Protein backbone atom coordinates (compact mmCIF):
# COMPACT_ATOMS: atom_id res chain seq x y z
CA UNK A 1 0.00 0.00 0.00
CA UNK A 2 1.42 3.33 -1.07
CA UNK A 3 0.11 4.95 2.07
CA UNK A 4 2.38 2.91 4.32
CA UNK A 5 5.54 3.65 2.38
CA UNK A 6 8.06 5.93 4.03
CA UNK A 7 8.86 9.21 2.38
CA UNK A 8 12.36 8.15 1.37
CA UNK A 9 10.97 5.05 -0.30
CA UNK A 10 8.55 7.17 -2.26
CA UNK A 11 11.37 9.51 -3.27
CA UNK A 12 13.66 6.64 -4.25
CA UNK A 13 10.92 5.29 -6.45
CA UNK A 14 10.88 8.65 -8.20
CA UNK A 15 14.61 8.37 -8.88
CA UNK A 16 15.80 10.84 -6.24
CA UNK A 17 19.29 9.88 -5.06
CA UNK A 18 20.32 9.97 -1.42
CA UNK A 19 22.76 12.78 -2.26
CA UNK A 20 19.94 14.94 -3.71
CA UNK A 21 17.81 14.09 -0.72
CA UNK A 22 20.51 15.18 1.75
CA UNK A 23 21.11 18.34 -0.26
CA UNK A 24 17.42 19.07 0.04
CA UNK A 25 17.53 18.45 3.79
CA UNK A 26 20.54 20.78 4.16
CA UNK A 27 19.02 23.59 2.09
CA UNK A 28 15.66 23.28 3.83
CA UNK A 29 17.31 23.30 7.25
CA UNK A 30 19.29 26.40 6.30
CA UNK A 31 16.20 28.12 4.83
CA UNK A 32 14.37 27.43 8.05
CA UNK A 33 17.30 28.84 10.02
CA UNK A 34 17.93 25.53 11.78
CA UNK A 35 21.52 24.93 12.94
CA UNK A 36 23.65 22.64 10.70
CA UNK A 37 23.65 20.02 13.47
CA UNK A 38 19.94 19.58 12.81
CA UNK A 39 20.45 18.42 9.19
CA UNK A 40 20.93 14.70 10.10
CA UNK A 41 17.88 14.95 12.35
CA UNK A 42 15.84 16.38 9.51
CA UNK A 43 17.10 13.65 7.16
CA UNK A 44 16.41 10.88 9.71
CA UNK A 45 12.94 12.17 10.43
CA UNK A 46 12.08 12.51 6.77
CA UNK A 47 13.48 9.07 5.98
CA UNK A 48 11.30 7.45 8.56
CA UNK A 49 8.25 9.61 8.08
CA UNK A 50 5.10 7.90 7.01
CA UNK A 51 3.34 9.75 4.27
CA UNK A 52 1.04 12.10 6.08
CA UNK A 53 -2.55 12.18 4.93
CA UNK A 54 -3.40 15.55 3.47
CA UNK A 55 -6.85 16.82 2.63
CA UNK A 56 -6.68 19.81 0.32
CA UNK A 57 -9.73 22.06 0.26
CA UNK A 58 -10.11 24.61 -2.51
CA UNK A 59 -12.64 27.34 -1.87
CA UNK A 60 -12.90 30.81 -3.45
CA UNK A 61 -9.60 30.64 -5.30
CA UNK A 62 -8.10 30.77 -8.77
CA UNK A 63 -6.06 27.53 -8.59
CA UNK A 64 -2.92 29.68 -8.84
CA UNK A 65 -1.68 28.29 -5.53
CA UNK A 66 -2.04 24.71 -6.73
CA UNK A 67 -0.37 25.70 -10.01
CA UNK A 68 2.50 27.25 -8.11
CA UNK A 69 3.06 24.21 -5.94
CA UNK A 70 2.57 21.47 -8.49
CA UNK A 71 3.79 22.87 -11.75
CA UNK A 72 7.35 23.84 -10.95
CA UNK A 73 9.56 24.35 -13.98
CA UNK A 74 11.43 21.08 -13.61
CA UNK A 75 10.85 18.17 -11.25
CA UNK A 76 12.30 19.29 -7.94
CA UNK A 77 12.68 17.56 -4.61
CA UNK A 78 10.12 20.06 -3.29
CA UNK A 79 7.69 18.95 -5.96
CA UNK A 80 8.37 15.30 -5.20
CA UNK A 81 7.94 15.81 -1.47
CA UNK A 82 4.62 17.26 -2.42
CA UNK A 83 3.94 14.20 -4.56
CA UNK A 84 5.05 11.94 -1.75
CA UNK A 85 2.45 13.11 0.72
CA UNK A 86 -0.73 11.16 0.66
CA UNK A 87 -2.96 13.70 -0.99
CA UNK A 88 -6.24 12.02 -0.27
CA UNK A 89 -8.50 14.77 -1.50
CA UNK A 90 -7.86 17.63 -3.91
CA UNK A 91 -10.72 18.20 -6.27
CA UNK A 92 -8.53 19.78 -8.95
CA UNK A 93 -5.96 17.00 -9.00
CA UNK A 94 -7.86 13.88 -8.01
CA UNK A 95 -9.18 11.47 -10.59
CA UNK A 96 -12.30 10.69 -8.61
CA UNK A 97 -15.32 12.95 -8.86
CA UNK A 98 -18.74 13.32 -7.33
CA UNK A 99 -19.65 10.92 -4.53
CA UNK A 100 -16.40 8.96 -4.93
CA UNK A 101 -14.38 12.12 -4.25
CA UNK A 102 -16.37 13.01 -1.16
CA UNK A 103 -16.13 9.40 0.02
CA UNK A 104 -12.31 9.64 -0.25
CA UNK A 105 -12.38 12.72 1.98
CA UNK A 106 -14.59 11.04 4.55
CA UNK A 107 -12.40 7.91 4.55
CA UNK A 108 -9.22 9.92 5.01
CA UNK A 109 -10.82 11.83 7.87
CA UNK A 110 -11.94 8.66 9.63
CA UNK A 111 -8.74 6.65 9.13
CA UNK A 112 -6.41 9.45 10.19
CA UNK A 113 -8.60 11.22 12.73
CA UNK A 114 -6.52 13.66 14.74
CA UNK A 115 -3.43 13.18 12.54
CA UNK A 116 -4.19 14.45 9.06
CA UNK A 117 -3.23 17.83 7.69
CA UNK A 118 -5.75 20.11 6.05
CA UNK A 119 -4.46 22.42 3.37
CA UNK A 120 -6.82 25.20 2.37
CA UNK A 121 -6.53 27.53 -0.56
CA UNK A 122 -9.13 30.18 -1.23
CA UNK A 123 -11.30 32.25 1.07
CA UNK A 124 -14.64 31.21 2.51
CA UNK A 125 -17.80 33.18 1.63
CA UNK A 126 -20.03 34.00 4.58
CA UNK A 127 -22.59 36.35 2.99
CA UNK A 128 -24.45 33.47 1.32
CA UNK A 129 -23.70 29.76 1.68
CA UNK A 130 -24.64 29.25 -1.96
CA UNK A 131 -21.88 31.47 -3.31
CA UNK A 132 -19.41 28.58 -3.33
CA UNK A 133 -20.26 24.94 -2.83
CA UNK A 134 -18.58 21.61 -3.48
CA UNK A 135 -20.78 18.55 -3.93
CA UNK A 136 -23.64 20.61 -2.54
CA UNK A 137 -21.75 21.37 0.67
CA UNK A 138 -21.02 25.00 1.45
CA UNK A 139 -17.37 25.96 1.84
CA UNK A 140 -17.95 26.94 5.45
CA UNK A 141 -19.54 23.61 6.39
CA UNK A 142 -16.87 21.60 4.58
CA UNK A 143 -14.07 23.54 6.30
CA UNK A 144 -15.56 23.18 9.78
CA UNK A 145 -16.33 19.50 9.25
CA UNK A 146 -12.87 18.67 7.88
CA UNK A 147 -11.03 20.80 10.43
CA UNK A 148 -12.57 18.94 13.36
CA UNK A 149 -10.24 15.94 13.15
CA UNK A 150 -7.19 17.73 11.74
CA UNK A 151 -3.78 17.86 13.43
CA UNK A 152 -3.18 21.26 11.87
CA UNK A 153 -4.37 23.46 9.06
CA UNK A 154 -2.12 25.05 6.48
CA UNK A 155 -3.77 28.07 4.88
CA UNK A 156 -2.03 28.29 1.54
CA UNK A 157 -2.18 31.57 -0.33
CA UNK A 158 -3.33 35.02 0.71
CA UNK A 159 -7.02 34.18 0.16
CA UNK A 160 -7.00 31.36 2.72
CA UNK A 161 -4.61 33.22 5.04
CA UNK A 162 -6.14 36.71 4.99
CA UNK A 163 -9.15 36.70 2.65
CA UNK A 164 -7.15 37.85 -0.37
CA UNK A 165 -8.74 39.13 -3.54
CA UNK A 166 -12.30 37.91 -2.74
CA UNK A 167 -11.99 39.86 0.52
CA UNK A 168 -11.01 43.07 -1.33
CA UNK A 169 -13.36 46.01 -0.92
CA UNK A 170 -16.37 45.85 -1.23
CA UNK A 171 -16.08 42.09 -0.51
CA UNK A 172 -19.40 41.08 -2.13
CA UNK A 173 -19.25 37.47 -0.91
CA UNK A 174 -18.35 38.30 2.69
CA UNK A 175 -15.11 36.36 2.19
CA UNK A 176 -13.11 35.52 5.30
CA UNK A 177 -9.83 33.81 6.09
CA UNK A 178 -9.61 30.29 7.54
CA UNK A 179 -8.49 31.70 10.89
CA UNK A 180 -11.77 33.60 11.27
CA UNK A 181 -13.83 30.40 11.19
CA UNK A 182 -11.51 27.83 12.78
CA UNK A 183 -10.22 28.92 16.15
CA UNK A 184 -9.46 25.65 17.95
CA UNK A 185 -6.76 24.21 15.65
CA UNK A 186 -3.19 25.26 14.95
CA UNK A 187 -3.24 27.26 11.72
CA UNK A 188 -0.19 28.14 9.72
CA UNK A 189 -0.56 30.86 7.12
CA UNK A 190 1.57 30.47 4.01
CA UNK A 191 0.54 33.69 2.34
CA UNK A 192 1.44 34.94 -1.09
CA UNK A 193 -0.40 35.24 -4.35
CA UNK A 194 0.74 32.57 -5.04
CA UNK A 195 3.02 31.43 -2.19
CA UNK A 196 6.56 30.22 -2.84
CA UNK A 197 6.66 26.40 -3.30
CA UNK A 198 9.71 26.00 -1.07
CA UNK A 199 7.79 27.53 1.83
CA UNK A 200 5.14 24.83 1.78
CA UNK A 201 7.73 22.04 1.51
CA UNK A 202 9.65 23.70 4.34
CA UNK A 203 6.55 23.71 6.51
CA UNK A 204 5.84 20.07 5.66
CA UNK A 205 9.46 19.15 6.43
CA UNK A 206 9.25 20.87 9.77
CA UNK A 207 6.00 19.09 10.56
CA UNK A 208 7.45 15.69 9.58
CA UNK A 209 10.71 16.29 11.48
CA UNK A 210 9.45 17.73 14.73
CA UNK A 211 5.79 16.79 14.64
CA UNK A 212 4.92 20.41 15.31
CA UNK A 213 4.50 23.64 13.43
CA UNK A 214 7.43 26.06 13.05
CA UNK A 215 7.62 29.38 14.91
CA UNK A 216 5.05 31.81 13.56
CA UNK A 217 4.93 35.59 13.30
CA UNK A 218 1.99 37.68 14.56
CA UNK A 219 0.12 36.96 11.33
CA UNK A 220 0.55 33.21 11.77
CA UNK A 221 3.23 32.86 9.09
CA UNK A 222 6.41 30.78 9.51
CA UNK A 223 9.05 33.17 10.74
CA UNK A 224 11.79 31.37 8.87
CA UNK A 225 10.31 32.53 5.57
CA UNK A 226 8.35 35.63 6.55
CA UNK A 227 10.72 37.02 9.16
CA UNK A 228 12.31 39.63 6.94
CA UNK A 229 10.91 42.16 4.55
CA UNK A 230 11.48 42.04 0.82
CA UNK A 231 13.08 45.49 1.21
CA UNK A 232 15.66 44.30 3.75
CA UNK A 233 16.77 41.41 1.55
CA UNK A 234 16.36 43.14 -1.81
CA UNK A 235 19.47 43.28 -3.99
CA UNK A 236 18.33 46.78 -5.08
CA UNK A 237 18.35 48.01 -1.48
CA UNK A 238 21.73 49.83 -1.84
CA UNK A 239 20.11 52.06 -4.48
CA UNK A 240 17.31 52.94 -2.07
CA UNK A 241 19.87 53.83 0.59
CA UNK A 242 21.77 55.96 -1.91
CA UNK A 243 18.56 57.68 -3.08
CA UNK A 244 18.79 56.30 -6.63
CA UNK A 245 15.32 55.54 -7.98
CA UNK A 246 13.74 54.53 -11.27
CA UNK A 247 11.19 57.25 -12.08
CA UNK A 248 9.43 55.28 -14.82
CA UNK A 249 9.60 51.79 -16.25
CA UNK A 250 11.85 52.74 -19.15
CA UNK A 251 14.10 55.53 -17.89
CA UNK A 252 17.83 55.34 -17.28
CA UNK A 253 17.29 54.41 -13.62
CA UNK A 254 15.09 51.46 -14.59
CA UNK A 255 17.70 50.27 -17.10
CA UNK A 256 20.43 50.55 -14.48
CA UNK A 257 18.37 48.49 -12.05
CA UNK A 258 17.77 51.23 -9.46
CA UNK A 259 15.23 51.01 -6.64
CA UNK A 260 11.55 50.74 -7.66
CA UNK A 261 10.14 52.46 -4.55
CA UNK A 262 8.87 55.45 -6.52
CA UNK A 263 7.04 53.11 -8.88
CA UNK A 264 4.99 51.82 -5.97
CA UNK A 265 7.16 48.98 -4.65
CA UNK A 266 5.65 47.57 -1.44
CA UNK A 267 8.91 45.82 -0.49
CA UNK A 268 9.33 47.84 2.74
CA UNK A 269 5.99 46.63 4.14
CA UNK A 270 5.99 43.12 2.70
CA UNK A 271 7.35 40.08 4.48
CA UNK A 272 8.13 37.10 2.29
CA UNK A 273 11.05 35.02 1.05
CA UNK A 274 10.89 36.10 -2.63
CA UNK A 275 14.17 38.03 -2.48
CA UNK A 276 16.05 35.02 -1.09
CA UNK A 277 14.22 31.85 -2.18
CA UNK A 278 13.17 33.37 -5.52
CA UNK A 279 10.90 31.81 -8.14
CA UNK A 280 11.14 29.39 -11.05
CA UNK A 281 13.87 27.22 -9.55
CA UNK A 282 15.66 30.18 -8.05
CA UNK A 283 15.78 32.14 -11.30
CA UNK A 284 14.35 35.50 -10.32
CA UNK A 285 11.64 37.37 -8.47
CA UNK A 286 9.37 40.28 -9.50
CA UNK A 287 11.74 43.08 -8.49
CA UNK A 288 14.61 41.37 -10.28
CA UNK A 289 12.57 41.36 -13.46
CA UNK A 290 11.89 45.09 -13.11
CA UNK A 291 8.47 45.22 -11.48
CA UNK A 292 7.71 46.64 -8.05
CA UNK A 293 6.58 44.25 -5.31
CA UNK A 294 2.77 44.24 -5.00
CA UNK A 295 2.87 43.14 -1.37
CA UNK A 296 0.86 40.00 -2.18
CA UNK A 297 1.73 38.18 1.04
CA UNK A 298 0.23 40.92 3.25
CA UNK A 299 -3.39 41.29 4.41
CA UNK A 300 -5.56 43.55 2.22
CA UNK A 301 -2.79 44.09 -0.32
CA UNK A 302 -5.48 44.59 -2.92
CA UNK A 303 -6.87 47.65 -1.11
CA UNK A 304 -3.57 49.50 -0.58
CA UNK A 305 -4.45 52.47 -2.80
CA UNK A 306 -2.96 51.22 -6.08
CA UNK A 307 -0.01 49.02 -6.99
CA UNK A 308 1.93 51.85 -8.61
CA UNK A 309 1.57 54.37 -5.79
CA UNK A 310 4.00 54.21 -2.89
CA UNK A 311 2.39 53.62 0.51
CA UNK A 312 3.69 56.95 1.81
CA UNK A 313 1.79 59.19 -0.62
CA UNK A 314 -1.74 60.49 -0.02
CA UNK A 315 -4.55 58.80 -1.87
CA UNK A 316 -6.66 61.89 -2.59
CA UNK A 317 -6.05 64.87 -4.89
CA UNK A 318 -4.04 67.03 -2.50
CA UNK A 319 -3.31 69.60 -5.24
CA UNK A 320 -7.02 70.46 -5.45
CA UNK A 321 -7.33 70.51 -1.65
CA UNK A 322 -4.42 72.96 -1.49
CA UNK A 323 -6.05 75.27 -4.04
CA UNK A 324 -9.46 75.22 -2.34
CA UNK A 325 -7.77 75.61 1.03
CA UNK A 326 -5.76 78.59 -0.17
CA UNK A 327 -8.88 80.22 -1.64
CA UNK A 328 -10.91 79.61 1.52
CA UNK A 329 -8.01 80.79 3.68
CA UNK A 330 -7.61 83.98 1.65
CA UNK A 331 -11.35 84.74 1.85
CA UNK A 332 -11.48 84.04 5.59
CA UNK A 333 -8.27 86.03 6.18
CA UNK A 334 -9.55 89.07 4.29
CA UNK A 335 -12.88 88.92 6.14
CA UNK A 336 -11.17 88.65 9.51
CA UNK A 337 -8.80 91.44 8.49
CA UNK A 338 -11.77 93.68 7.72
CA UNK A 339 -13.33 92.87 11.10
CA UNK A 340 -10.06 93.66 12.87
CA UNK A 341 -9.68 96.92 10.94
CA UNK A 342 -13.20 97.94 11.91
CA UNK A 343 -12.47 97.10 15.55
CA UNK A 344 -9.28 99.13 15.37
CA UNK A 345 -11.16 102.10 13.89
CA UNK A 346 -13.82 101.93 16.60
CA UNK A 347 -11.10 101.81 19.22
CA UNK A 348 -9.46 104.87 17.68
CA UNK A 349 -12.77 106.74 17.64
CA UNK A 350 -13.55 105.82 21.21
CA UNK A 351 -10.09 106.85 22.29
CA UNK A 352 -10.17 109.90 24.59
CA UNK A 353 -6.90 111.78 24.70
CA UNK A 354 -5.60 112.64 28.13
CA UNK A 355 -4.32 116.21 28.51
CA UNK A 356 -2.46 118.08 31.22
CA UNK A 357 -5.78 119.36 32.58
CA UNK A 358 -7.04 115.80 33.04
CA UNK A 359 -3.90 114.90 34.93
CA UNK A 360 -4.32 117.87 37.19
CA UNK A 361 -7.95 116.93 37.72
CA UNK A 362 -6.81 113.48 38.71
CA UNK A 363 -4.20 114.98 41.05
CA UNK A 364 -6.89 117.12 42.70
CA UNK A 365 -8.81 114.09 43.81
CA UNK A 366 -5.98 112.78 45.91
Amino acid at each position, binding site marked *: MAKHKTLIEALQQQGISRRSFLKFCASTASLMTLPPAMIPAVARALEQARRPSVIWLSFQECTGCTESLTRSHSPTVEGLIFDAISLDYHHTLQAASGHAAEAARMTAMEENHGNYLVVVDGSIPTANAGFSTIAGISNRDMLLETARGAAAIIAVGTCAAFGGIPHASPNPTGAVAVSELVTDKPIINVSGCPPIPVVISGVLTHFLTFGSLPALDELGRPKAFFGQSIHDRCYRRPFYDK*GLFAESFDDEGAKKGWCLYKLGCKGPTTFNACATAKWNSGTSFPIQSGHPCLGCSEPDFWDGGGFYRPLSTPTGDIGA*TLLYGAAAGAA*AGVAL*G*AVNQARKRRAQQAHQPVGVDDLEKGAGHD
Partner: protein
Amino acid sequence: MTETEFLMWVRGPAFQVATLVFVIGIIVRILEVLLLGRKANLAEARGSAIAGGLRTILTRMWPDRGTLQRSTFTVVAGYVFHIGLFVTIFLYAPHILLIRDVFGVGWPALPTTIIDAATVVTIITLLAVLIYRLRSPVQRFLSGFQDYFVWLVTILPLITGYLAFHRIGLTPPMLLAIHILSVELLMVTFPFTKLMHAFTLFMARWYNGAIAGYRGVRS
Protein backbone atom coordinates in the same frame (compact mmCIF):
# COMPACT_ATOMS: atom_id res chain seq x y z
CA MET B 1 -11.10 48.68 10.95
CA THR B 2 -8.17 46.68 9.61
CA GLU B 3 -4.62 48.01 9.53
CA THR B 4 -4.84 48.65 5.81
CA GLU B 5 -8.16 50.47 6.22
CA PHE B 6 -6.61 52.59 8.97
CA LEU B 7 -3.62 53.39 6.76
CA MET B 8 -5.95 54.25 3.87
CA TRP B 9 -7.98 56.54 6.13
CA VAL B 10 -4.83 58.25 7.34
CA ARG B 11 -3.53 58.65 3.79
CA GLY B 12 -6.95 59.67 2.47
CA PRO B 13 -9.63 61.66 4.35
CA ALA B 14 -7.45 62.44 7.38
CA PHE B 15 -4.66 63.85 5.22
CA GLN B 16 -7.18 65.95 3.25
CA VAL B 17 -8.60 67.44 6.45
CA ALA B 18 -5.14 68.06 7.90
CA THR B 19 -4.04 69.79 4.69
CA LEU B 20 -7.15 71.98 4.66
CA VAL B 21 -6.71 73.04 8.30
CA PHE B 22 -3.00 73.66 7.74
CA VAL B 23 -3.41 75.78 4.61
CA ILE B 24 -6.45 77.75 5.74
CA GLY B 25 -4.97 78.31 9.20
CA ILE B 26 -1.64 79.61 7.95
CA ILE B 27 -3.13 81.93 5.32
CA VAL B 28 -5.70 83.34 7.75
CA ARG B 29 -3.09 84.01 10.41
CA ILE B 30 -0.64 85.66 8.02
CA LEU B 31 -3.39 87.80 6.44
CA GLU B 32 -4.64 88.83 9.87
CA VAL B 33 -1.19 90.17 10.76
CA LEU B 34 -0.63 91.88 7.43
CA LEU B 35 -4.10 93.42 7.10
CA LEU B 36 -3.92 95.02 10.52
CA GLY B 37 -1.75 97.65 8.80
CA ARG B 38 0.62 100.19 10.30
CA LYS B 39 0.37 103.93 10.66
CA ALA B 40 2.12 105.89 7.96
CA ASN B 41 5.61 106.94 9.08
CA LEU B 42 5.66 110.70 8.71
CA ALA B 43 9.38 111.05 9.43
CA GLU B 44 11.71 111.65 6.53
CA ALA B 45 13.46 108.45 5.36
CA ARG B 46 17.18 108.32 6.06
CA GLY B 47 17.77 105.02 4.35
CA SER B 48 16.04 102.22 2.53
CA ALA B 49 13.45 100.26 4.48
CA ILE B 50 13.49 97.50 1.84
CA ALA B 51 17.29 97.07 1.95
CA GLY B 52 17.21 97.09 5.74
CA GLY B 53 14.41 94.53 5.83
CA LEU B 54 16.09 92.13 3.41
CA ARG B 55 19.46 92.53 5.14
CA THR B 56 18.01 91.69 8.54
CA ILE B 57 16.22 88.59 7.20
CA LEU B 58 19.67 87.32 6.18
CA THR B 59 21.83 88.60 9.05
CA ARG B 60 19.55 87.05 11.70
CA MET B 61 20.31 83.65 10.25
CA TRP B 62 23.52 83.81 12.30
CA PRO B 63 23.63 84.48 16.03
CA ASP B 64 25.53 87.52 17.27
CA ARG B 65 28.55 86.83 19.40
CA GLY B 66 26.99 88.08 22.64
CA THR B 67 23.95 85.81 22.37
CA LEU B 68 26.11 82.85 21.45
CA GLN B 69 28.31 83.38 24.50
CA ARG B 70 25.43 83.96 26.91
CA SER B 71 23.25 81.04 25.76
CA THR B 72 25.58 78.69 23.97
CA PHE B 73 23.47 75.58 24.55
CA THR B 74 20.20 77.15 23.43
CA VAL B 75 21.75 78.55 20.26
CA VAL B 76 23.72 75.43 19.27
CA ALA B 77 20.93 72.98 20.13
CA GLY B 78 18.46 75.23 18.32
CA TYR B 79 20.54 75.12 15.16
CA VAL B 80 21.09 71.38 15.39
CA PHE B 81 17.44 70.40 15.72
CA HIS B 82 16.24 72.91 13.13
CA ILE B 83 18.78 71.71 10.57
CA GLY B 84 17.96 68.12 11.60
CA LEU B 85 14.27 68.74 11.01
CA PHE B 86 15.03 70.28 7.61
CA VAL B 87 17.18 67.33 6.57
CA THR B 88 14.75 64.66 7.76
CA ILE B 89 11.66 66.37 6.37
CA PHE B 90 12.95 67.62 3.03
CA LEU B 91 15.83 65.36 2.02
CA TYR B 92 14.39 61.88 2.73
CA ALA B 93 13.37 60.08 -0.47
CA PRO B 94 9.77 59.11 0.45
CA HIS B 95 9.10 62.67 1.68
CA ILE B 96 10.41 64.17 -1.56
CA LEU B 97 8.18 61.71 -3.35
CA LEU B 98 5.18 63.05 -1.43
CA ILE B 99 6.17 66.65 -2.27
CA ARG B 100 6.59 65.76 -5.93
CA ASP B 101 3.24 64.01 -5.86
CA VAL B 102 1.53 67.16 -4.58
CA PHE B 103 3.51 70.02 -6.15
CA GLY B 104 5.09 68.34 -9.15
CA VAL B 105 8.62 69.36 -8.14
CA GLY B 106 11.24 67.20 -6.53
CA TRP B 107 14.95 67.15 -5.79
CA PRO B 108 17.63 64.54 -5.13
CA ALA B 109 17.45 62.69 -1.81
CA LEU B 110 20.18 62.09 0.73
CA PRO B 111 21.28 58.51 1.48
CA THR B 112 19.02 56.93 4.10
CA THR B 113 21.94 56.30 6.46
CA ILE B 114 22.49 60.06 6.72
CA ILE B 115 18.76 60.65 7.25
CA ASP B 116 18.78 57.93 9.90
CA ALA B 117 21.69 59.56 11.72
CA ALA B 118 20.10 63.02 11.40
CA THR B 119 16.88 61.66 12.92
CA VAL B 120 18.71 60.24 15.93
CA VAL B 121 20.69 63.45 16.44
CA THR B 122 17.52 65.55 16.16
CA ILE B 123 15.61 63.37 18.63
CA ILE B 124 18.47 63.48 21.13
CA THR B 125 18.81 67.25 20.74
CA LEU B 126 15.09 67.78 21.25
CA LEU B 127 15.24 65.65 24.40
CA ALA B 128 18.22 67.70 25.60
CA VAL B 129 16.33 70.91 24.88
CA LEU B 130 13.41 69.67 27.00
CA ILE B 131 15.68 68.67 29.87
CA TYR B 132 17.39 72.06 29.69
CA ARG B 133 14.01 73.80 29.71
CA LEU B 134 12.91 71.84 32.78
CA ARG B 135 16.18 72.37 34.66
CA SER B 136 16.68 76.04 33.92
CA PRO B 137 14.63 78.05 36.47
CA VAL B 138 14.12 80.96 34.09
CA GLN B 139 13.05 78.82 31.13
CA ARG B 140 10.76 76.73 33.32
CA PHE B 141 9.15 79.86 34.69
CA LEU B 142 8.57 81.18 31.17
CA SER B 143 7.15 77.91 29.83
CA GLY B 144 3.47 77.18 29.62
CA PHE B 145 1.40 74.22 28.42
CA GLN B 146 1.77 75.24 24.79
CA ASP B 147 5.56 75.12 24.92
CA TYR B 148 5.53 71.50 26.03
CA PHE B 149 2.71 70.64 23.65
CA VAL B 150 4.49 71.97 20.55
CA TRP B 151 7.63 70.15 21.68
CA LEU B 152 5.60 66.93 21.78
CA VAL B 153 3.97 67.35 18.36
CA THR B 154 7.39 68.16 16.89
CA ILE B 155 9.22 65.15 18.31
CA LEU B 156 6.39 62.66 17.66
CA PRO B 157 6.81 62.51 13.86
CA LEU B 158 10.56 62.01 14.36
CA ILE B 159 10.09 59.13 16.78
CA THR B 160 7.26 57.50 14.82
CA GLY B 161 9.24 57.97 11.60
CA TYR B 162 12.29 56.33 13.12
CA LEU B 163 10.19 53.40 14.36
CA ALA B 164 8.48 53.10 10.97
CA PHE B 165 11.80 53.13 9.11
CA HIS B 166 13.27 50.44 11.33
CA ARG B 167 9.93 48.65 11.76
CA ILE B 168 10.09 48.38 15.51
CA GLY B 169 7.19 47.20 17.63
CA LEU B 170 4.24 47.01 15.24
CA THR B 171 3.54 45.90 11.70
CA PRO B 172 4.92 48.19 8.96
CA PRO B 173 1.52 49.45 7.70
CA MET B 174 0.51 50.29 11.29
CA LEU B 175 3.80 52.08 11.98
CA LEU B 176 3.48 54.03 8.73
CA ALA B 177 -0.12 54.96 9.56
CA ILE B 178 0.88 56.17 13.04
CA HIS B 179 3.76 58.17 11.56
CA ILE B 180 1.50 59.90 9.01
CA LEU B 181 -1.10 60.50 11.73
CA SER B 182 1.52 62.17 13.94
CA VAL B 183 2.42 64.46 11.04
CA GLU B 184 -1.27 65.27 10.60
CA LEU B 185 -1.44 66.21 14.29
CA LEU B 186 1.50 68.54 13.69
CA MET B 187 -0.25 70.02 10.64
CA VAL B 188 -3.52 70.83 12.42
CA THR B 189 -1.83 72.33 15.48
CA PHE B 190 0.75 74.25 13.45
CA PRO B 191 -1.24 77.39 12.52
CA PHE B 192 -2.67 77.91 16.00
CA THR B 193 0.47 77.57 18.10
CA LYS B 194 3.97 79.00 18.37
CA LEU B 195 4.93 76.73 15.52
CA MET B 196 3.66 79.57 13.29
CA HIS B 197 7.08 81.14 13.85
CA ALA B 198 8.25 79.14 10.83
CA PHE B 199 6.29 81.64 8.73
CA THR B 200 6.07 84.75 10.91
CA LEU B 201 9.79 84.93 11.72
CA PHE B 202 10.55 86.29 8.27
CA MET B 203 7.83 88.94 8.66
CA ALA B 204 9.16 89.91 12.08
CA ARG B 205 12.75 90.11 10.85
CA TRP B 206 11.67 92.17 7.89
CA TYR B 207 9.77 94.56 10.12
CA ASN B 208 12.66 95.03 12.53
CA GLY B 209 15.09 95.56 9.69
CA ALA B 210 12.78 97.87 7.78
CA ILE B 211 12.29 100.21 10.79
CA ALA B 212 16.04 100.46 11.27
CA GLY B 213 16.68 100.83 7.55
CA TYR B 214 14.16 103.68 7.29
CA ARG B 215 15.94 105.45 10.10
CA GLY B 216 19.30 104.81 8.51
CA VAL B 217 20.65 102.75 11.39
CA ARG B 218 21.87 99.16 11.64
CA SER B 219 19.46 96.68 13.09
